[in-house]
């Protein structure tokens, strides 16, 4: 940076001041900019109505509901296995991770515990879903900022993970594989070796992302200091997952809760970042991907043989009661509050999705930012429309 003389500084400040005075004199009213529901930058059908003053946002409000499919009503007329089919379409990138809290809550109401191998399989697929999800995030955030290359890498490397998930479950990202009491099938032959090599490729991808993006001046200038969320505000809104950990909150349901997945058998760490800006959120997720590959490697190394399904009746009637189970999904904390009356179908299922809370902070967060920063912030918060709208 060349030294700026005082005179230049004064001229710059004067220009800014006169600009502001012009705004006042002309009495420019805010312009209302409608972003979406169809827009390349809104990750789906989210509509943001932003009231602008020049380039700054005075007030931005997301309008949702364009993907509202009525899950909570639909679950009341479907049996438990049918609900499983439906709910892995809530967070449609995180595949297996959507089914797990529901199955765990139903199992705990029934008093069943899945056998150990089934828990291992669940955890491994859960982490693979997380990896697939965050790979997409890493590519997607780059494309929001204008870097086109990473998303092609992301889609290419996601294919390896999706291949593995498909080899076990039959579906690339709607696996419908979890059953009350265990999982549907066991791993096919040779799956473990293929997965280990897929994890190697994912780690290479993370290194590529780090090379391509994180050191880039443009990336840093666009994300550092943008969209800072203080930890107390984060908790008030119920921010969870990497968004909360990027604000310094040390909380991870994989470590802090005891829900029936076998994270305790692997040696891994929780990544936090004190800044709370968009760069922190990107960084935390990148580290989490690496950590997830390490968890998968360890679990694949230590999985033992055994049954994959506990004894459950053919027709599943969950006894009366209420249960809430939340797990650390790729997007944040996802939980199912099941109210059961002893029937074939649940009486009420409240789906607590991470993105709903994550996006509820945007009216507070988007005050005073510039229009390009809206895109950065939305990209770094990382929500999936199905998760918001259910």
């Amino acid at each position: 940076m060349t030294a700026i003389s005082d005179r230049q500084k004064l001229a710059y400040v004067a220009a800014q001041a006169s600009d502001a005075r012009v705004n006042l004199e002309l009495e420019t009213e805010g312009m209302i900019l409608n972003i979406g529901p169809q827009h390349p930058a809104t990750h789906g059908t989210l509509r943001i109505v932003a009231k602008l003053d020049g380039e700054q946002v005075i007030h931005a409000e997301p309008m949702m509901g364009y993907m509202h499919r009525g899950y909570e009503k639909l679950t009341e007329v479907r049996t438990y296995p049918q609900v499983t089919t439906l709910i892995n379409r809530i967070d449609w990138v995180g595949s297996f991770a959507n089914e797990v809290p529901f199955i765990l809550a139903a199992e705990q109401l029934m008093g069943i515990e899945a056998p150990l191998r089934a828990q291992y399989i669940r955890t491994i697929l859960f982490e693979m879903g997380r990896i697939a999800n965050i790979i997409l995030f890493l590519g997607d955030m780059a494309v929001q900022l204008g870097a086109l290359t990473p998303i092609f890498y992301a889609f290419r490397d996601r294919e390896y993970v999706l291949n593995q998930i498909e080899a076990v479950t039959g579906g690339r990202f709607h696996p419908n594989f979890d059953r009350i009491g265990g999982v549907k099938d066991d791993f096919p032959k040779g799956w473990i070796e293929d997965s280990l090599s897929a994890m190697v490729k994912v780690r290479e991808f993370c290194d590529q992302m780090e090379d391509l993006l994180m050191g880039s001046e443009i990336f840093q200038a666009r994300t550092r200091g943008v969209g800072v969320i203080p930890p107390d505000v984060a908790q008030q809104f119920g921010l969870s997952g990497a968004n909360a950990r990027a604000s310094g909150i040390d909380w991870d349901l994989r470590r802090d809760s005891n829900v029936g997945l076998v994270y305790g058998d692997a040696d891994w760490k929780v990544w936090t970042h004190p800044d709370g800006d968009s760069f922190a959120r990107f960084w935390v997720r990148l580290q989490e991907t690496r950590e997830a590959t390490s968890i998968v490697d360890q679990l694949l190394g230590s999985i033992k043989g055994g049954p994959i399904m506990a004894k459950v009746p053919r027709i599943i009637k969950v006894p009366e009661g209420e249960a809430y189970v939340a797990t650390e999904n790729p997007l944040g904390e996802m939980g199912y509050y099941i109210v059961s009356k002893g029937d074939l179908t649940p009486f009420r299922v409240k789906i607590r999705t991470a993105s709903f809370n994550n996006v509820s902070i945007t009216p507070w967060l988007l005050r005073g930012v510039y229009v390009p920063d809206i895109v950065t912030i939305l990209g770094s918060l990382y929500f999936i429309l199905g998760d918001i709208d259910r």
Partner: protein
Amino acid sequence: MSSSEDTTIPVSESPAADAPSEPAAPVDDLREGLVERLTELLGDGVVDHHIIPGKDVWIRVTADAWQHTAESVRYTLGCRYFGFLSAIDWMPSPWGRGMEAEVDTIVHGKEAKELPAQTTGYAGGDTRFQVFARVANIKDHFGITLKVDAGDETPSVPTWTKVFAGADWHERETWEMYGIDFVGHPFLRHIYLPGDFEGNPCRKDFPLLARFVKPWPGIVDVEPLPGSDEPGSDTAGSDEPAADASAPEETA
């Protein structure tokens, strides 16, 4: 299995501010302590509670104490994390539920069954609508589910937005889905549904009309191929009750 019935955000035997908790004992000191402290703070506000030892606690409060409850859990009990807020409609659905859904059988000419009596869940309840919320304490790893009776015909409770800013959207959604009025909310308006939507979809008496037009045919073992002309191959109708279903765990 008595110890694995339920789970909260994290379940752990970590030391709490109140008293050491015992892992497998039937008495849950941590949660009993929570109920006691809340009762101290709210007095008559706490109506009922239910504890599953080692797992979770449900506390029901009065509508008048609802806002004070929010302040107490946030500032005194340290539950600064806002989970969610929603409602339950305890009325049994007039159209039944599940595979023997009444709507499907009534359309095919069977008589409507009698409605079962309305019952409520943990920590009881007096009214048809209940609002419930979940908050958690991240440092000490526990969560509390709070319930409040909202009312029967025109349900309404005070708002939580002054204490937890994140409750804003949750209350809007609950208002939209159940018709529960939140007194003091800055601007209750539609969040999911189009502005001219009539009715409150999640209420039990809101019908899913698609099921009236084309009822669910019941659990089919082998679906007939399209264009099959045999009249008996279609199991539409309720003559094959769910008891005959052979593989409900398969995806239907």
